[in-house]
């Protein structure tokens, strides 16, 4: 136990220590959140899986959608209709018996013979099921004029709805859960008391939300980039041009919508003191993330539900870009929805900051939201 001046001065920092602004403190906290996450094995693995899934989805989608089907047909004699139809590989045979043998052997999909007794003047012979594509190709169809033609094939419509919702669900659940865990970790290990003796709870909350939002955003951008690369590699540039604007809107809505959810996850997590209790308060927030996901899957072709969803802050990030993609939204609608989302987010942040600030030092049993809003009572 010596008290030497040398020992004292060795600990002394430069006398004029620069102060720490709100922005600098937020940056420090956000930085720590990001570095900690990037180092975590779970994060590395889940990001890898997400990227592979995006790439595989695009490639599989292209392979399925782009498959051109040709029907091979055995023709007895000359049938005018077959010669005029496109997409048929025609094989000339001499007799009906020979054609039937080829059909049975599966060498050709069907045989076509002239038949005067049929109203169409031809007969199609197939093995087990009626070859619809061939029937359609040989049918005489009246011309149809659509007054309001759909731009988006229904398969793509479903894929887009599913894609937006899936990315939103995955990112929100992953990073929302991460924020919740990191809030409880600080509470459970009690380091939070040291932290808030140096900085305000508002600074801490802002830093945590910012750090995790940036990571979530980066993950979505990288996933999006993979999807775009996939689309152009598989030659689906037409789809790409349709998706461009909705993706841009999705990113804008996602960023703000994510901040909204992140604040709620942080506030919910601050109500408990142990990782074991986290599910109890975080589950309601998780439900708010799941709802848009299921609404999109079940109601992607119901425009009333989609319209409502595109204005509700929790589901706007999925609903509005989808409606833009489907060309169902007027130009002002995304702006209005964005305003509602921003207002809702600000409101939620104010309430969340209050809950978070009041609940941080209260340890022990789970605290109710009402209690946390009322006072910061600490025993």
């Amino acid at each position, binding site marked *: 136990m010596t008290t030497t001046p040398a020992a004292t001065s*060795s*600990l002394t*920092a430069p006398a004029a220590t620069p102060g720490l602004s709100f922005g600098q403190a937020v940056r*420090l906290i956000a930085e720590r959140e990001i570095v900690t996450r990037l180092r975590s094995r779970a994060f590395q693995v889940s990001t890898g899986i997400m990227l592979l899934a995006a790439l595989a989805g695009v490639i599989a989608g292209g392979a399925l959608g782009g498959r051109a089907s040709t029907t091979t047909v055995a023709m007895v004699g000359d049938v005018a209709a077959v010669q005029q139809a496109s997409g048929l590989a025609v094989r000339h045979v001499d007799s009906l018996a020979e054609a039937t043998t080829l059909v049975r052997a599966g060498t050709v999909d069907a045989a076509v013979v002239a038949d005067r007794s049929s109203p169409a003047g031809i007969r199609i012979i197939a093995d087990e099921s009626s070859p619809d594509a061939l029937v359609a190709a040989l049918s005489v169809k009246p011309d149809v004029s659509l007054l309001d033609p759909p731009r988006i094939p229904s398969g793509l419509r479903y894929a887009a709805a599913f894609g937006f919702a899936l990315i939103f669900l995955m990112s929100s659940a992953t990073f929302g859960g991460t924020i919740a865990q990191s809030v409880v970790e*600080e509470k459970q290990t009690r380091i939070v008391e*040291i932290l808030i*003796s140096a900085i*305000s709870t508002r600074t801490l909350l802002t830093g945590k939300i910012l750090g995790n939002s940036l990571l979530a955003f980066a993950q979505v951008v990288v996933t999006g980039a993979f999807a775009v690369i996939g689309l152009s590699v598989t030659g689906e540039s037409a789809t790409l041009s349709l998706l461009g604007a909705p993706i841009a809107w999705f990113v804008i809505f996602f960023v703000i919508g994510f901040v909204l959810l992140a604040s709620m996850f942080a506030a919910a997590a601050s109500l408990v003191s142990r990782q074991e209790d986290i599910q109890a308060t975080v589950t309601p927030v998780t439900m708010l993330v799941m709802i848009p996901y299921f609404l999109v899957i079940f109601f992607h072709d119901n425009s009333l539900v989609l319209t409502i969803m595109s204005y509700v802050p929790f589901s706007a990030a999925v609903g509005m870009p989808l409606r833009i993609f489907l060309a169902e939204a007027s130009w002002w609608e995304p702006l209005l929805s964005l305003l509602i989302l921003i207002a809702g987010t600000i409101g939620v942040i104010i309430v969340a900051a209050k809950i978070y600030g009041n609940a941080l030092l209260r340890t022990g049993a789970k605290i109710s939201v009402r209690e946390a809003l009322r006072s*910061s*009572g600490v025993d």
Partner: protein
Amino acid sequence: MLEITKINRSFGARQVLTDVSFDVPGGRITGFVGRNGAGKTTTMRIVLGVLTADSGEVRLNGALLTPADRRRFGYMPEERGLYPKMPVAEQLVYLARLHGLSQRAARHNTTDLLAKLELSDRAGDKVETLSLGNQQRAQIAAALVHDPQALILDEPFSGLDPLAVDVVLSVLRERAAAGVPVLFSSHQLDIVEQLCDDLVIIADGTIRAAGPRDELRDRYAGTTYQATFGTDAGWLRDQPGITVTDFDGPNVIFDAGSPEAAQSVLAAAVARGPVLSFSPRRPRLAEIFKEVIQ
């Protein structure tokens, strides 16, 4: 000097601090004593700004505390904790920077402090991999790494192994010697008595006694005396107005009732034979504590 003036605080309907006032002078170690639930932690949290007071103020060198001042305080909460999965040195640098130090100063202080606490070879290890004793040292480092202007330590000795106690003691003395106000709470009265220059005793949210340790001991000495005579002191028990509380051959402890009565006892003793010692008896902290918290 840190001045705490008329702090009040209640949680709901329960008033936990009532007009709490005391000073923590720079260059001295102040011990903050009280039972569990007396209000020690709440008071310290209010000084640090972790909690707000309903009324009252805290001043440092005459000026009201600002968040920037508080950022330069060193705090060791009663509930210990660091990030378990973060390397020791990285964590200390992070905490130092949150307290406003530059990256360079934070690194410099971290390296110095780890060397001093003999933790240098564990600098890159995660906190959770350290032994309990080393985790406690890391915790001490967390309170000191930003070279604090004031130290507030809540039960710094509880749960410490003997080696770590020595480290904390030396660090507190060193800080105090550098002119920093040091306030620490404890319920281990013997450590407080041994270490601190000043004492603050709190019970049920009110300050019961505060001041330099020796002054307090004198104040609560009352009219109790201890004496050692050359012969058996048994005769003292028959003196009117004198209450003997402890007696063992020539050694005796007694309450004289008044200083004058004590002088008469001394005169009588000198008349009977040699008097080897005769002095007012300074109470131990535990005795003062028992008396003032009632």
